[in-house]
């Protein structure tokens, strides 16, 4: 019965609930929300794929295709680090958005090809 004061106070207090779908929550700066890949910076070396713990990234080094499956990603930002410190290209960054629910599995996959060099 020790909860009674707290409970009665709460009736008149504003609820703690975030009004989520209407009001988007604040996210911290460093949130690891999603892998964002810059197809222009990338050199398609395949190192990120090698160190990805779950095999979410696959790189075809010959054909220069970078494929990312968000449905398998762990959002660990290992690839970001590899690209930044080992390859020194910074082609991968972690975006801060987190609402990725999809109805089709195929929509979770991103495929990037090396763009044709412009004349």
């Amino acid at each position, binding site marked *: *019965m020790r*909860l*009674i004061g707290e*409970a*009665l106070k*709460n*009736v008149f*207090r504003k*609820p*703690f*609930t975030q*009004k989520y779908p209407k009001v988007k929550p604040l996210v911290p700066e460093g949130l690891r929300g999603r892998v964002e890949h810059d197809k222009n910076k990338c050199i398609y070396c395949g190192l990120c794929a090698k160190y990805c713990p779950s095999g979410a990234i696959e790189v075809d080094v010959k054909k220069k295709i970078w494929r990312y499956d968000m449905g398998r990603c762990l959002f660990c930002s290992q690839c970001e680090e590899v690209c930044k410190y080992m390859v020194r290209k910074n082609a991968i960054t972690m975006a801060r958005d987190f609402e990725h629910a999809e109805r089709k599995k195929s929509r979770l996959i991103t495929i990037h090809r090396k763009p044709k060099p412009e004349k």
Partner: protein
Amino acid sequence: MIFEILIYPGFVFLVLISMIYYGILRKLAARMQSRIGPPIWQPILDFIKLVGKEDLNPEQAKAGFTLWPFIAITSVLIAGLLTPIAGIVPLSFTGDIVVLIYFLAFGSLAVYLSGFSSSNPFGVVGSMRGLIQMIGYEFPFIVSILVPVVAAGMLSPFLINTLQIHYGWFGFVFPFAAIAYFISILAKVEIPPFHTPGAHQEIVSGYSTEYTGTRLAMIELTHMIKLFVLISLGVALFFGGSADMVTFLVKSLVLLFVVTLARVLVARFRIDQILKFTWFFGLVALIDLVRVMVFI
């Protein structure tokens, strides 16, 4: 007469207001837990959804699996018709408080029998607990109801209701009986600390484990109506009665608020603790009964 039985304050009104009351309970509880909570008409939506859902028939179900929920709801509805709501009793005959007690008890019994008929181990354990709990709460319930009955010298809750309007609140005259009555409301509707028969964490959903769709909706509705009936009976017997809608609403909502507090504040009792607790309050209510017998 037909209008009174079917629409107001009969079946339709009874069903709707019970659901709204339950919705208010859920909303209040959510606010006490510092959440926004569902809208107060949520139980209506739940009910419609459940009716629209598929009914699964478990293989091992015994006879009466379908029947018991409907019997349960019918009996509490009849009990509802015998209860004075805002000074009106749709059905009324002599000795109706005894009939009322029987119908309420039978409503609970039918729910528990439904658990047995489902043959699910969780259902059986839940029903067994329910029956043990019934042994516990019927005693304080009956004793506490007897107090105003004996005091008023009449068996009709309607008349006790009107009598109180003239003579003052029985709840103050017989506080012990009023407390015992309140405890038995919680126990009868399985509101914490008495939600042992349907204890989520131990036995999934207790007696209603095997039920789906319409039959589940009936079981849930039985509870809601029981809650409303018990609250309005409490208003009629102990809280000064009510002759018009406004006093009735105010008084019953206050009672509902207290019920919600109990729901939010306490942990679940074990079955042996329930027996001790309810019988203790039964004995306490006996004090009042003795007082009535001796002094009146």
